[in-house]
């Protein structure tokens, strides 16, 4: 009963922004339209929900879909002891969305990781660079078209002055 309520309340608060709500394997999931993320998250951070913790942020690549990248956010509410998953789909030619860095500090590194691995851009991110790969790395390794054993050229040795 309680479970259903939260999803319904989000749907009522943002009727034109929510695409779908579901609870596969008992995990509440909200699918949003692109561009709706910041508003919904700010709403969820306030009372009575208090989803104050960003547990995880990642991306899934579906090359055969029109909207290729699916961003997945897991947020957690200490007050309600409940997790919520937020999903957004982004097309490849416009793979950018609002950064969550103003709300959560760990979003900085998590978004850098998503940018590094998938090439998704975050608007308003203070320092969007690769996190794990080096700067000269070509391509985004977790995209499906990136081959498993692809080699990158070696970084040339820096000449000592």
């Amino acid at each position: 009963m309680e479970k259903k309520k939260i999803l319904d309340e989000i749907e009522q608060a943002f009727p034109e922004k929510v695409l779908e709500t579901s609870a596969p394997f008992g995990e509440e999931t909200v699918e949003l339209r692109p561009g709706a993320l910041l508003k919904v998250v700010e709403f969820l951070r306030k009372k009575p929900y208090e989803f104050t913790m960003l547990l995880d942020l990642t991306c899934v690549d579906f090359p055969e879909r029109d909207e290729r990248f699916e961003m997945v956010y897991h947020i957690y509410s200490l007050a309600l002891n409940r997790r919520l998953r937020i999903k957004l789909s982004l097309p490849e030619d416009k793979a950018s969305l609002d950064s969550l860095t103003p709300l959560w500090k760990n979003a900085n590194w998590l978004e850098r990781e998503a940018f590094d691995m998938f090439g998704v851009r975050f608007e308003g991110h203070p320092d969007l660079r690769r996190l794990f790969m080096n700067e000269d790395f070509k391509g985004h390794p977790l995209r499906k078209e990136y081959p498993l054993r692809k080699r990158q050229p070696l970084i040339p040795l820096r000449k000592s002055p």
Partner: protein
Amino acid sequence: MTARIQKQANPESLLLNMGPSHPAMHGAVRIMLELDGERILNSEVEVGYLHRGFEKTCENRTYFNLLIYTDRLNYVSPLINNVGYVMTIEKMLSLQVPERAQYIRVLMSELSRISDHLTCLAAMAMECAAFTVFLYNIKAREFIWDVIEATTGARMTTSYIRIGGVRADLRPDYPESVQKAVLETRKVLKDVHGLLDKNKIFLSRTRDIGLMTPEDAIAYGWTGPCLRSTGICYDVRKAHPYLVYDRLNFDIPLGERGDNYDRYMVRMEEMEQSLRIVEQCLARIPKSPGRVMADGLEPAEAIRASRLKKPGQAIRLSPNLEGAEKDVYKNIMADDPRFIIPPKEEAYTSIEGLISHFKFFMKGHGIRPPKGEVYFSVEGGNGEVGYYIVSDGSDKPYRLHLRAPCLHLLASLEDLIKGRLVADIIPTFGSMNIILGELDR
């Protein structure tokens, strides 16, 4: 490579490079420092030196095969990573695990947690010049790893927790060896408390250093002992109980200030609680009916014997195939032939067993969870270890993402050391227990 800090730095301040190979950087992480004298004006943490494409690799391995890669994430407590991964898959398959296997998993997780905390505090104390503590902690860890080695066959790369249960049953003499490990660890904890708690050198390097407020800890997504040191009670074992944790009695130790000393104290208290859990597991673990170990035949002999065997006569396999016998399976493995390896007697002695063995390992067969996505997390040594798995119905995960607790901890290091001295980096970094194998994936 030009880092952000090199562009921003004041030309009059000193730029210092700490790492990626530095004795106090556990693993390979690079911290660029902008210094004014010994005071840190700015810093930049660079990670990725240990990136080995864990998530990409997993997309190209079957669900059964990729278990070994999870050992290598947090290499000090590999069993907890195994538990997390395996339980995510079990959630997708809605697989029920026998009670004995659940207790074994809890027992092994808690022993791993103790070894994780012991290692962290050993390194931290050593870097604060308490070398005795390092030796004591490593000694206690050896006793714990002896139990782990006897049960799983390996000290670090265990791959012991399998989908549906565990690989083998406990050794017949496990109560004595576990009790010995518990006893030795208690002794060491008492000694360490005596050596460090009121030690002036240790206190001056940890008290009120690396301070984190509860609000910032949440904003950084901290979990585990580090979050609890700031006074916030969040433990996955209590918040979302898994396995048999809801039946066991244990407390969640909390800190007050969120400094290095509190993180040390919370880890010490947590080990006490883990020891309590281990003792309760020993007392409550359901007895395995029948013999724990089989004294049986080598595979070739088993095949020969099967040709001569009379109906109703059981064939036992040799101990080096231990854990794969039919008798043991019902205690430690789920009762669903689709998702577990068929018992070795059947694979070696009957055509049906051989077929089901092939079907399990053949490409495109084996474990194929239904389409969908699932997130599941367990309480690891340094926080919430979460797995997010997307399945497309095939035998390989479409996407596997690990929520590494260390990433969120290390992301805050720049804030923690800002305005402090260079020497403060070492206890701060040590008390967070950064495991690069898990962070860089």
